[in-house]
């Protein structure tokens, strides 16, 4: 579906006239910027070095971080969910959960222990949002992970609802170690490349850094306002 555009010509003509020139009609090349300091941050750092930077920064963003091998994932996930008080759990529909050996935990062990697990299913419409709203834990996967700021990047689509990461009371984010990059710069470049290849960008890209917080009352930091109150990162060694 194509949207509508109203009042554009008059508006843009006014701008051109303020700038004392005619409207720009030729395509504009992206400028060659004189300064590019953003590429210097952690330039040439290895994945191990980036992981250390991430772990260090997690201390400042009130986020627990586990670094594990793939075989340990079910046990660690179980431990974190238990510590957060159990279910209900809501997850994306994502084949990586199965690939990473989580089927028996999510589909057998948790249900048998009365931990309700709901997997996003777009066929069910609004019910997905109700499930996320009532969930204790939401589980998502980071596509790109920013070491400098301790940030996970989530792309929404029909199987990966936006609300899974912010309606549940707590949040677990799985981070493949291979997804680590120095900072937001590399994520922006990658998203732009994806856009240029496919002509598409996800309708919601979330850069999430730890649990939600606010300092609006006397500048006192309160962790957990509208989004999750607690957050855990699990870095999986996939290299």
């Amino acid at each position: 579906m194509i949207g509508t555009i109203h009042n554009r010509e008059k508006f843009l003509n006014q701008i051109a006239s303020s700038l004392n020139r005619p409207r720009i009609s030729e395509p504009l090349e992206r400028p060659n910027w004189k300064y590019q300091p953003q590429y210097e941050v952690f330039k040439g750092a290895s994945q191990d070095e980036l992981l250390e930077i991430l772990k260090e920064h997690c201390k400042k963003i009130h986020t627990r971080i586990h670094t594990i091998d793939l075989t340990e994932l079910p046990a660690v996930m179980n431990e974190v969910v238990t510590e957060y008080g159990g279910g209900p759990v809501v997850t994306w529909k994502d084949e990586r959960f199965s690939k990473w050996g989580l089927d028996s935990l999510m589909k057998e062990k948790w249900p048998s222990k009365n931990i309700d697990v709901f997997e996003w299913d777009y066929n069910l419409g609004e019910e997905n949002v109700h499930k996320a709203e009532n969930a204790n834990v939401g589980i998502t996967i980071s596509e790109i992970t920013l070491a400098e700021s301790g940030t996970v990047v989530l792309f929404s689509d029909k199987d990966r609802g936006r609300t899974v990461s912010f309606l549940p009371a707590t949040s677990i984010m799985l981070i493949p170690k291979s997804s680590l990059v120095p900072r937001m710069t590399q994520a922006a470049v990658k998203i732009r490349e994806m856009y240029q290849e496919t002509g598409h960008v996800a309708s919601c890209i979330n850069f999430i850094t730890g649990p939600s917080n606010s300092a609006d009352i006397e500048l006192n930091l309160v962790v957990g306002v509208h989004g999750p109150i607690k957050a855990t990162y699990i870095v999986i060694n996939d290299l």
Partner: protein
Amino acid sequence: MAIKIGTEQFKERVDNGIHDDFMRGAVASAQDGMSMKRRAATTEDLGNWEEWRNHGEEIRQHVLEHLDYYLEQLSENVAKRGGHVFFAQTKEEANDYIRSVVQKKSAKNIVKSKSMMTEEISLNAMLEEEDCEVIETDLGEYILQLDEHDPPSHIVAPALHKNREQVREVFEKKLGYTKSSNPEELAYQARVTLREKFLAADIGITGCNFAVAETGSFCLVTNEGNADLVTALPKTQITVMGMERLVPTFEEMEVLVSMLTRNAVGQKLTSYITVLTGPREELDVDGPEEFHLVIVDNGRSKILGGEFQSVLQCIRCAACINVCPVYRHIGGHSYGSIYPGPIGAVLTPLLGGYDEYKELPYASTLCGACTEVCPVKIPLHNLLHKHREVIVEKEGKAPVSEKLLMKAYGLGAASPALYKIGSKIAPAAMNPFTSGDKISKGPGPLKAWTEAREFPAPNKERFRDWFKNREKGDKKL
């Protein structure tokens, strides 16, 4: 004027500010804390901070020079994704369009995330006239809204002037809150109350930190995650942006977001940076079914191309507010504008006119601290000076005391003889107002100042005399 807050005159507002001890203490410690965090996250953390500032400046200047091009590209790309774009030259046009969407949707419940642009166009007043319940969901703004629309005093921390006890009282009165003034308990109450509002809302309204022309996207920067709920739950979303708030691609957006979060709150990134493109996609379950982008001029095109153009480079980080010695003493409400501090003193007269805001360019010591910290290198104190030139030369509107002072100083300083006499009689002239070495009840222009603090009395011995005596061998210090 929609950017106007309060009804008192400038002098009365300043007077209220100077006598509000809690506010002054809160502002001083907020400034110190925020400035310390900013320094740690900018000059100390990034060794080449000046390069970042240069890059920030070149991006913003490039966008302003090619603004029509990038806005055209943005609107094409938003429409391609199924979004509707409305260009509003005035705030009335913006409000009329938004009203038509509200009416078409028969909307009654509206949730908002923090937006200076919607404050500027008085959107909430219009929505309330339409019998809508409008809820501000940023915690600071929600507190102010509950407290009978108390105006914001800072663009990043709007409820800075309130203490926790005052917040507790507001919650008790308006929400039947019974717990303590502990900020965590207060925030939890807001979480519970507002969650209901999010789930029931027909329309979500946001501002826009930066739009991305190449993809038709825009980003929202928050810590609380409220913007995510505003844009994920209601079926209709309206985003209101100032026409200058855009960048060419994701790569420039990234740079400016990094500069915004480091300067505003000293964080490498805030907890939530949400980049949205169009409405939800075909099989998506959450996100809005309908998306409207309202791009507002409201006086900005008059600034473009003129000597104040660089003020449009602003990314609303408030670093200038956090270092300003004048803001420190008089607080945000004294400016009488939703935009306080140095950026407000430059921007407000341009948007609201000199008639209403001729005093603001004088609410500055021209010390230049604002210019020094600005991440996109707006020459703020030079622009304040330029305002004064315009006010005096073209508008003939200088405050009377300024005129007299300038006249007297001009006379007195023009001739060495007169200056000599002036500085010689100063101690005697000030004598009636002096106790010890302090002036506590100053005359004329000193009166307002000395009502709240003391002013050092002129030295009994002039520098000139002291120097002469010292030369003669009478070395006393």
